[in-house]
């Protein structure tokens, strides 16, 4: 359900209704005051009657305010009803039969309504079956049981009378009457106890903003419930004590609707906070993180976290540009903020705030432009962060490559040249006495030399294939294809020769992709397609192997991604198990 905090446009009819209710309440109060002043009320309950009038007015007034604020919620109506029930209850002090009887019937009703109000705060609906049972039970006890009890109540025996005629009186059965009254009191105590327990539990489970809104109503409500309990228990004590507890209870009751209004006002303070927020945003220095603080203040949630949406990578990042995992924030609710239909950020906040979507909405609308600005900033930082990581990886890859080259030279060609020198030295010493051995040694030396040359050649090709510079991409890819251990179908169509750096990047994309095909794919055929598409160079390497390659796992593909991104290109890997692997790369075709 949603509830608007903004005052609803008041049509003429609603205004007339408010006026009528106010007038009726004023008339009832005036009547009550006149009655008290004229001494119509029996002496010992005069204070109680006066306090009751005040409580009634408080209820009707607060109810009307609440009703205007949230016409879709029953709270306002309930409060007005409680007010009039309190007026009606005070008619029990009247000296004539009809008002006396009405008063007797309606006197306990406000307790049930107040219980209903407290349990349904703040949304205006009951939260559980237990609460619904308690409220239904309360109405039954104060209304149905009350009427049945009055039917068997002879007032001749009641202290504090002579009293007017009880119009509901059927039969004087003191025993039955006492039994019903005891039952009613017992049920009342049970229900009030359960209600108090529910209230305590709610308070314990509520947190942050909800507690702030709950505090006044729960405080006055629980005091009322306690006093109600006391009143029920004190019914056996003296009339004076009972009247005193009752008066205190009425005072507490009178405070309930005011507390409700305070709760409402606190919620409305949110709106004041929104206007503060707007002003603050207006003069806010463009300092990162400031917006989060301002929102945390406006929403009164110090634990509030703000994460910005980066559409490119499909992730949320903090203001520092680092990726944020929203799911990790346990015990918090996530609200996605949009601006002009575009997702811009997410608020990670106290779940209680979700009960006031209007406030969240107002705050995020007010902060829309600032949010968008900070989002762009965060996105920029995320890109910088990515760039920094990628740069570090490129440097690292360069170092790794150098180490690899050094090791290859050391273990390969260098080693062979050493043994070559050795063989030559031996041959030199043998050449005169043992020419046959010398020749064998020389042959071995030549073998060694051929191997060394071959290894150096492979190494040089690995560093940079000369044919790429000399003849370009198509040529170099042809060589690459014929050297690949799997069959490669090559389809290269270029409008013009791309710049050397782009050619090299494209070459290494295909080389690494084909190396992966050879190493992991268990494929029989690979297809390499290279096309110029306007200003872009599109490369696709597909194989018919096992698939299931993970672009983020291997450093090879990661390195390719870095290389491609360094030129403002992009790399995509689609590799479902059993469906082969397809690597798409896109590079600018001009520098």
């Amino acid at each position: 359900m949603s509830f608007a905090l903004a005052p609803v446009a008041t049509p003429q009819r609603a205004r007339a209704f408010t006026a009528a209710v106010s007038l009726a309440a004023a008339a009832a109060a005036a009547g009550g005051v006149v009655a008290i002043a004229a001494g119509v009320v029996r002496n010992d309950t005069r204070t109680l009657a006066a306090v009751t009038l005040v409580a009634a007015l408080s209820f009707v007034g607060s109810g009307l305010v609440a009703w205007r604020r949230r016409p879709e919620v029953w709270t306002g109506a309930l409060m007005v009803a409680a007010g009039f029930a309190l007026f009606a209850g005070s008619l029990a002090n009247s000296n004539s039969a009809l008002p006396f009887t009405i008063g007797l019937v309606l006197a306990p009703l406000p307790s049930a309504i107040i219980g209903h109000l407290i349990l349904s705060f703040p949304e205006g609906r009951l939260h559980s079956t237990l609460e619904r049972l308690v409220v239904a039970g309360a109405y039954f006890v104060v209304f149905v049981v009350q009427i049945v009890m009055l039917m068997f109540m002879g007032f001749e025996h009641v202290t504090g009378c002579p009293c007017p005629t009880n119009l509901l009186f059927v039969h004087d059965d003191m025993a039955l009457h006492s039994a019903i009254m005891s039952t009613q009191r017992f049920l009342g105590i049970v229900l009030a106890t359960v209600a108090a327990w529910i209230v305590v539990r709610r308070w314990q489970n509520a947190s942050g903003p909800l507690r702030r809104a709950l505090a006044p109503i729960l405080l006055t409500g629980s005091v009322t419930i306690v006093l109600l309990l006391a009143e029920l228990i004190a019914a056996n004590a003296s009339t004076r004590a009972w009247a005193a507890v009752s008066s205190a209870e009425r005072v507490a009751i009178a405070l309930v609707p005011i507390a409700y209004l305070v709760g409402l006002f606190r919620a409305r303070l949110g709106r004041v906070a929104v206007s503060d927020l707007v002003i603050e945003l207006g003069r806010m220095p463009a300092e990162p993180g400031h917006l989060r603080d301002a929102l945390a203040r406006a929403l009164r949630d110090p634990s509030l976290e703000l994460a910005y949406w980066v559409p490119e990578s499909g992730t949320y990042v903090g203001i520092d540009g680092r990726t944020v995992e929203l799911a990790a924030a346990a015990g918090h609710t996530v609200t996605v903020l949009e601006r002009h239909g575009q997702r811009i950020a997410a608020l990670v906040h106290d779940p209680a705030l979700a009960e006031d979507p209007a406030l969240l909405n107002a705050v995020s609308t007010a902060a829309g432009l600032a949010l968008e600005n900070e989002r762009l900033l965060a996105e920029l930082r995320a890109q910088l962060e990515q760039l920094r990581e990628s740069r570090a990886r490129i440097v690292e890859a360069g170092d790794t490559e150098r180490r690899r080259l050094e090791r290859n030279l050391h273990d390969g060609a260098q080693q062979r040249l050493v043994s070559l020198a050795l063989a030559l030295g031996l041959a030199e010493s043998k050449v005169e006495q043992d020419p046959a051995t010398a020749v064998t040694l020389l042959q071995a030396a030549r073998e060694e030399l051929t191997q060394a040359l071959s290894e150096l050649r492979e190494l040089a090709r690995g560093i940079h294939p000369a044919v790429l510079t000399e003849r370009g991409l198509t040529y170099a890819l042809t060589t690459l294809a014929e050297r690949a251990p799997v069959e490669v179908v090559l389809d290269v169509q270029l409008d013009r020769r791309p710049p050397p750096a782009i050619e090299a990047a494209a070459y290494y994309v295909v080389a690494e992709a084909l190396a992966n095909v050879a190493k992991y794919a268990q494929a029989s055929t690979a297809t390499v397609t290279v096309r110029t598409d306007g200003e872009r160079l599109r490369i696709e390497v597909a194989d018919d192997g096992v698939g299931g390659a993970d672009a983020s796992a291997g450093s090879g593909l990661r390195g390719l991604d870095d290389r491609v991104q360094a030129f403002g290109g992009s790399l995509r890997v689609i590799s479902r198990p059993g469906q082969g692997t397809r690597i798409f790369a896109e590079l600018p075709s001009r520098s």
Partner: protein
Amino acid sequence: MVVADDSVLLREGVKRILEEGGFEVVGQSGTAGDLMLKVRSYEPDLAIVDIRMPPTHSDEGLRAAQEIRERHPGTAVLVLSQYVESGYALELLADSAEGVGYLLKDRVSDVKDFTAAARRVASGGTALDPEVVSRLVGRRKGTGPLDELSPREREVLELMAEGRSNQGIAERLVITDRAVEKHITSIFGKLNLPAAPADHRRVLAVLAYLQS
């Protein structure tokens, strides 16, 4: 003959090997431009050219070789390189396999085989590096008529593509000329090629087949 390479040491080495093999080296060049000049002046039977030479150190040797083949049909060209590209070989042999060679520099170390190759090229034959041939054979991966060849027939095919004569193949494989002829007939049959022509022409036929 003329030897062109920007490394004096290598030039001298090649010169000595060839002179011992009975060649007369009439000139040496360190650049492609000088090579063209010497070829024009001496009109040698053979020019041995390194692919990478000044000024750009890329493929000017290859370009010079092609120019020589175009303008001086009387001069055969043997291109040497630190590495071989099958594409370069196909460029060199695009029109004719007559009097052209393309070998890895390493092959110089096998003096006998190298001088034989130089002599073959100088007399209008072909010398294609085994590595080029194996790459070209490698292009035809998977199933195909090539897989129907026996290992020996494959060897013969590769040696044929290198430009060797029947006698050269026979010596290499230590079999009789007759046996080589039988293998060649069988190969051409299996590959569905018309009857085997003489040496340098059949190189083109085999290369054309490998490229198709």
